[in-house]
């Protein structure tokens, strides 16, 4: 085995919330500005978004370290 290389094994975090405001028609966390996601949350993780897709139910982002 190589002495060092890229670590493939992921860390996975899943958080569930309660209290979605009915005025936001079920958008909840999806109302977070992309800038907040990118600059305050993903920057803390040391990741950036390289690709994204969304549908009626959720948003999905591919990240790069």
């Amino acid at each position, binding site marked *: 085995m190589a002495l060092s290389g890229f*670590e493939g094994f*992921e*860390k996975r975090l899943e958080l569930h919330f309660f209290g979605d405001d009915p005025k936001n028609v079920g958008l909840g966390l999806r109302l977070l500005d992309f800038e*907040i996601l990118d600059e305050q949350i993903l920057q803390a993780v040391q990741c950036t978004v390289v690709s994204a897709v969304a549908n009626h139910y959720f948003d999905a982002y591919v990240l790069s370290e």
Partner: protein
Amino acid sequence: SSLFVYPTKIIIKTCGTTELLKSVAPLLRHASLLGLTLTSCRYSRGNFIFPAAQPFPHDTFQNEVVYLEDSLPDSLCYRKASVMPSKTPSHSWHVFSASTEATSYPLNGDVMYTIEICMTELDRDLARSFFQHPGDGKNGDTAGKEMTEITGIGEIIPGALICDFAFDPCGYSMNGIDGDRHSTIHVTPEDGFSYASYECVGSVYDCDDVVRVLKRVFKVFRPATMSVSTTCVSHDVWTLVAGALEPLGMKCRSCAVDEFPAAGNVVYQTFTARR
């Protein structure tokens, strides 16, 4: 790495030396501004191939748990951390769960499972598909799309919309979205530390899909070692896993079961190739 944002759920899955747990505090702060209250948290990972390279708090599971405990509100009072062992060297499944309630059942009655697959020692010929060809004029998006097609990844869940990306010089990530269900694949193809992961969610009412998905995922990578973690509050989805993989030449080496607040039963199975 991937991020999924649902109205009341967020999932972040990152590899390399990322500092995933540092996202918890800003996430909770911004969720609170939207009027959202945290009800449960689940953190999981396998064994790192290069543990010495991991920064704090990911340098040890103990530090990860302490960091999480300190980051979460007291209302998540049901907490548990466990390392689920296996008979395969260097394989164990680290799980931390916290919840405001001891158990959690969905309001709409649909019971979902999550399946997380970690694969090492990928077939060398198949892994070669995840290297870019220098000077071919493709970018991350176009090369990723090509990898999705030629490897058969696009056929794992045929109806899913796929967002894929190829890294330079090698590596691949994709997210699949199929209605309200996500799936994701990440590949590190370099020989010596090759790795691929697959994750999807599904309903226990059509859990036969698990068998089809496992077979297709296996054929994309043909790994020598495979670990499968299934998480579900009330159904024995895990019993289908060995039935899907053993006819493909994999042998179940170990199986560990544990119960976690809100998450339910986590079953961790490891398989190695008979070859």
